[in-house]
């Protein structure tokens, strides 16, 4: 197993946490990059890789909060395994199914994160942060799939103008 790609994925999570999160946040709603990466790895990589990537991605996500390291490692690892099992049973040829897997995975992740962080005003937080965050992340994932499958290319964007 080559480690460098996974190291780059972890670096992307760190980059998002430090630099990109502030830029990409719209009205308090941010992209759930960690959950997105874990679900994407679950779609394309074997189960053992998904398990350990989820474990490390969770730790990288909350590296600044020592008390939450274990909880997040467990959470993202579980998310990766669930996403992997779901992907095994689905036909992922169509973009729609992949987008639905991402939406489900990120939403589940966001709901549990809200529960870990604070139980006060849980439902309000779910409505104002978790669900819009999951939708925002799904839009990003949809664009990613469009580019990956060659439906969205630079030439096509250029032809629009």
């Amino acid at each position, binding site marked *: 197993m080559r480690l460098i790609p996974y190291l780059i994925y*972890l*670096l992307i*999570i*760190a*980059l998002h*946490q*430090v*630099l990109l999160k502030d830029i990409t946040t719209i009205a308090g709603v941010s992209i759930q990059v960690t959950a997105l990466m874990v679900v994407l790895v679950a779609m394309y990589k074997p*189960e*053992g890789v998904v*398990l*350990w990537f989820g*474990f490390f991605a969770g*730790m*990288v996500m909350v*590296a*600044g909060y*020592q*008390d939450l*390291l*274990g*909880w997040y*490692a*467990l959470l993202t*690892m579980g998310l990766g*395994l669930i996403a992997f099992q779901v992907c095994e049973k689905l036909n992922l040829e169509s973009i729609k199914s992949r987008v639905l897997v991402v939406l489900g995975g990120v939403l589940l992740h966001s709901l549990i994160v809200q529960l870990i962080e604070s139980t006060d005003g849980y439902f309000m937080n779910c409505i104002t942060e978790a669900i819009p965050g999951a939708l925002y992340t799904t839009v990003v994932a949809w664009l990613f799939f469009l580019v990956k499958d060659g439906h969205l290319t630079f030439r096509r964007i250029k032809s629009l103008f």
Partner: protein
Amino acid sequence: MNWISSQYARHWRNINLVLACILSLMLIFGPKVINNYVSQGILSSLYYPFFKLKRGYELLKMDAVDITDFRQALMESSVRLSIYEERIRENDRLRSALGFDPPASYKLFPTKIVSVSGTIIPSRVVVNRGASDSIAVDYSVINQQGLVGRVESVGPDFSAIQLLTDPGNRVAARVASSREMGIVKYSPTDGMTLGHFPRNGKIVVGDTIITSGLGGVYPPGLVVGIVSDVIRFEKEPFCNVSLEPIVNFRSLEELFILMQERLQ
């Protein structure tokens, strides 16, 4: 060995899962020192370059703001300078019309202290510049804080500086606000004082004392000290004015000799 590898091959999924769960539980319930090491490891490896990048960007942003401020200050200063230059020219014209000597201008000559002497507080220093650098006796010596003393004697490559803390040194001075005059002196028992200052003179604690330019040694306007105490006695013609020296004589490093030039 074969048995172990065959068992791992059969149960690798469960082994990995159990191992990852044990590690997670160790991070949740284990000693905090492990979490600390893990957190520090991630922050100092994966996060570090991005923290540096962010810090650099913030510094650049601050610098950009500073540069704008500096540019504005520079513009204001250059306008003010041109006004002052015009006033200098006007002053020269008026002085020549009245038959006065042209005003003196000074240039700073940097020196380094070679040795210090004095018992309780330094009272004399030797600097590494002398007659070969056109330094002469009675030139004023300052540092970035204010007046330090005067050149007492000059050798070929060194000069002895008599500091204001030397009891034999006297400085003709005045109060910056009221312009009333006195003589600054120093004694080991009383510290720095402003002598010969009239009892009814306008002086209060916190006033700045500057050189008056009288006596011909020190140019006018150099800061000597701040008034720290004023005692007025009924039957005395002068009051006792204590000063806090503006220069810290215990931490002298670089000194500047004021070299006088006559404007033509």
